[in-house]
């Protein structure tokens, strides 16, 4: 009935096809336009539907009325046989200019209608959008959730060249991944923390020559972080088996971080090209006494001298020095640490020895690795020194402030130590830069 009415209304006697979208709305379209679309064509031929309003062809769900309109415009243009290729191309270029959301919907709809030329056109447009963008930009354009964990993102980049710096970065990422995992695990293990905390608190207190036992409780929380890292490092040193380089790095890190808390080495090393350090230490109530500073200074001076020597000496000799340095450093906390840390240090030492032997073996194999290894170890040393100094600086500043607030003593001393530390820090930064410059491959 409706068809008859329609025929009367439209004088040109064209035949129309009725299409129904998923939301129920029905449209009518000229037959030749609809036939351009293979799916509709098949439906008409096979089932005979579409000839009237009641028997409208129901389109797949992905086609909504607005998009259907676009598709029909496309079909209407292209089904005319007399157009030249150039005309079609120009039309296509103009047609494809729409926002990304619509483009994706159009692609989806064209695919469900099996309109291959339009699918190709839209795919090409989407590829052009994606090409050359950074991942953040792509995510923003397409509203992709950034739901890869830090772990997965940090996974070794698969398609990167063999740049030694990238290799280093990958290894550091691998270590950071491990740390993240450890952190996850340790979040659940509360009980053990308490016991270990005691020792580390002792360690801390004696180290900074302060006797502030009042806020042990609050300290444990903060020390947890530090302690976890301390535990992680030796764990890493014993468990990491991929390559002597890793082992070496891990073995060396306990050797150098005994000066106190140290944030994860990987963060430090991540910024190997930019000297930025973020002391993640928030120790409170650490009374730092001025007596400590001369001893500290001595040690720092010694380290820096070693460091400078290392800059000039050959690698195997350097290796020996590091070993010896590690053993020297052991002396300081050895006396302070309880039994727990002893086991760390032996593990570290054995790791070091192993590392040195393995290293000698591989020296002949890969020159490039040696070179980067040197660089790495030196950077390690530097960063540790700087780290230590930051800590001390912080300590002095903090304690100065605290004294000022509570006891209103003379603050000149603490200020002076602060300045002295800053100078030392500055000196080491310069040394580090010098090192980096000399070691540029």
């Amino acid at each position, binding site marked *: 009935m409706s068809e008859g009415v329609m025929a009367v209304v439209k004088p040109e006697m064209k035949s129309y096809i009725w299409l129904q979208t998923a939301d129920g709305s029905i449209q009518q379209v000229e037959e030749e336009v609809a036939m351009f679309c293979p799916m509709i064509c098949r439906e008409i031929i096979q089932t005979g539907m579409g000839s009237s309003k009641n028997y409208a062809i129901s389109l797949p769900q992905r086609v909504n009325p607005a998009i259907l309109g676009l598709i029909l415009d496309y079909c209407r243009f292209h089904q005319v046989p007399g157009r030249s290729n150039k005309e079609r191309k120009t039309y296509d270029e103009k047609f494809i200019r729409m926002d990304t959301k619509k483009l994706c919907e159009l692609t989806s709809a064209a695919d469900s209608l099996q309109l291959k030329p339009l*699918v190709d056109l839209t795919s090409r447009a989407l590829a052009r959008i994606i*090409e050359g963008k950074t991942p953040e930009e792509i995510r923003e354009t397409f509203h992709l959730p950034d739901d890869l964990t830090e772990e997965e993102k940090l996974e070794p980049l698969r398609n990167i060249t063999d740049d030694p710096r990238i290799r280093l970065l990958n290894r550091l990422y691998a270590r950071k991944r491990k740390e993240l995992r450890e952190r996850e695990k340790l979040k659940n293990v509360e009980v053990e923390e308490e016991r270990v905390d005691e020792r580390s608190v002792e360690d801390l207190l004696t180290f900074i020559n302060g006797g502030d036992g009042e806020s042990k409780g609050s300290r444990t929380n903060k020390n947890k972080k530090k302690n976890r890292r301390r535990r992680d490092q030796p764990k890493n040193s014993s468990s990491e088996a991929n390559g002597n380089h890793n082992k070496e790095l891990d073995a060396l890190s306990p050797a150098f971080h005994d000066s106190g808390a140290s944030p994860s080495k990987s963060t430090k090393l991540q910024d190997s090209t930019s000297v930025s350090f973020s002391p993640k230490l928030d120790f409170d109530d650490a009374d730092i006494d001025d007596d400590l500073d001369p001893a500290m200074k001595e040690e720092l001076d010694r380290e820096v001298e070693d460091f400078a020597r290392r800059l000039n000496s050959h690698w195997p000799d350097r290796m020996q020095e590091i070993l010896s340095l590690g053993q020297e450093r052991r002396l300081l906390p050895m006396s302070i640490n309880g039994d727990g840390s002893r086991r760390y240090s032996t593990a570290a030492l054995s790791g070091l020895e192993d590392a040195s032997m393995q290293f000698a073996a591989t020296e002949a194999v890969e020159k490039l690795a040696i070179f980067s290894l040197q660089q790495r170890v030196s950077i390690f040393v530097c960063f540790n020194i700087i780290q230590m100094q930051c800590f001390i600086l912080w300590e002095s500043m903090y304690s100065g402030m605290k004294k000022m607030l509570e006891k209103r003593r003379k603050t000149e001393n603490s200020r002076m130590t602060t300045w002295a530390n800053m100078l030392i820090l500055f000196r080491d930064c310069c040394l580090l830069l010098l090192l980096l410059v000399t070691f540029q491959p």
Partner: protein
Amino acid sequence: MGDLMEPDLISDLPQSIIESILTRLPIRDAVRTSILSSKWRYKWASITQLVFDEKCVPFCSDQDFDEKSLIEFITRALFLHEGPIHKFQLTTSYLQSCPDIDQWILFLSRNDIKELALELGEGDWFRVPASLFRCKKLTHLELFRCELDPPPSFKGFLFMKNLTLHQVSVYPDVIENLISSCPLLENLSLSYFDSLTLNINAPNLKYLFLEGEFRDINLENAPLLSSMSVAMYMTDDNFEHFEQSSSCNFDKFLGGLPRLETLTGHIYFTKYLSIGYDLGKLAITYDHLKVIELYQVSFEDMKEIYVVLRLVTSSPNLEELQISGSSNALVAMEAPDLDLWEKESHSKCALEKLKHVKMTEMSSVPHEMEFIKFLLCRSPVLERMSITPCVYVMDGRLNMLIELVRFRRACSSKIKL
């Protein structure tokens, strides 16, 4: 963090669309989509087309480093890939022959490779490993600068449709066997072979492209050939060899091609065809031949003129003709046998569909003029004839112009000079 209420636009598109998007990206960008989100992590790993070139790896001026990084990139990409690989294309000048390529081809042969294209750098030519010949499903093969030596057990690529060999070092009978053992071969392209003698036996062949020094080509069985483009470089020894041969090249070459639609001949093609030409009766008319393009036709050699005439007169449905001459004007001015044209004018052939004629590099030699006259007389529907004189002809152009305008025309067409 982004708006959590915004729906993800693209990740839920069907895999076929994602694949068509990813294959349109350079491979490096496609692999990088793996860090976009968790759904995109391995979408790239199932694309079926892998196209590698020098843009895959960042450029570093150290040649060895580039080579190594490219090798590593490709190896890793193949290793992480899952699923069938239908197309593999490698175009690079960094790599020459290296053992990794053998392993890649072995890997591809296990993964249903269908299209393979290898273009490596100048240097040691890459020796194609035997695993290539075990790729049963190969339909497209393109090799540049390789050494091909199929094992004796090789029976041919049964699905091969496109074969392109460019500067490939083979034994001559290997090529013949290869061509004849690919029954579905449709598209054959051979370039830069030295002195090749070839019998082409390919019942389904539709497109033929030849370039190089060929000693003897015999299209003995290519009845479906519809498009042909040949560039024959002739050295002196080849030419001597030709002089001695008695068989008519024209028949051998173009004799069995009733379905020919497009014929393009470069360099010495007409010369080649003219060898051994006898003025015998034509055997075959090219009913489908629509486009003829001949370059380097020398209008001073009678035999070549005969060849061109024969081609033109046996193609009643010719629509487009393009001839580029290369006559030596001084020699060709004394033109013998101009009565040939008298004879031709009595023949009744008419080029009823000829619409476009383009004559370039004309030196206004008499035979050329006669030929143009001939064409003008016979083409009732000629729409455009463009004549471009050779750049070396300075004088005499005006004369040529005047003469041309005077020619009798069978239609009201434009002559463009």
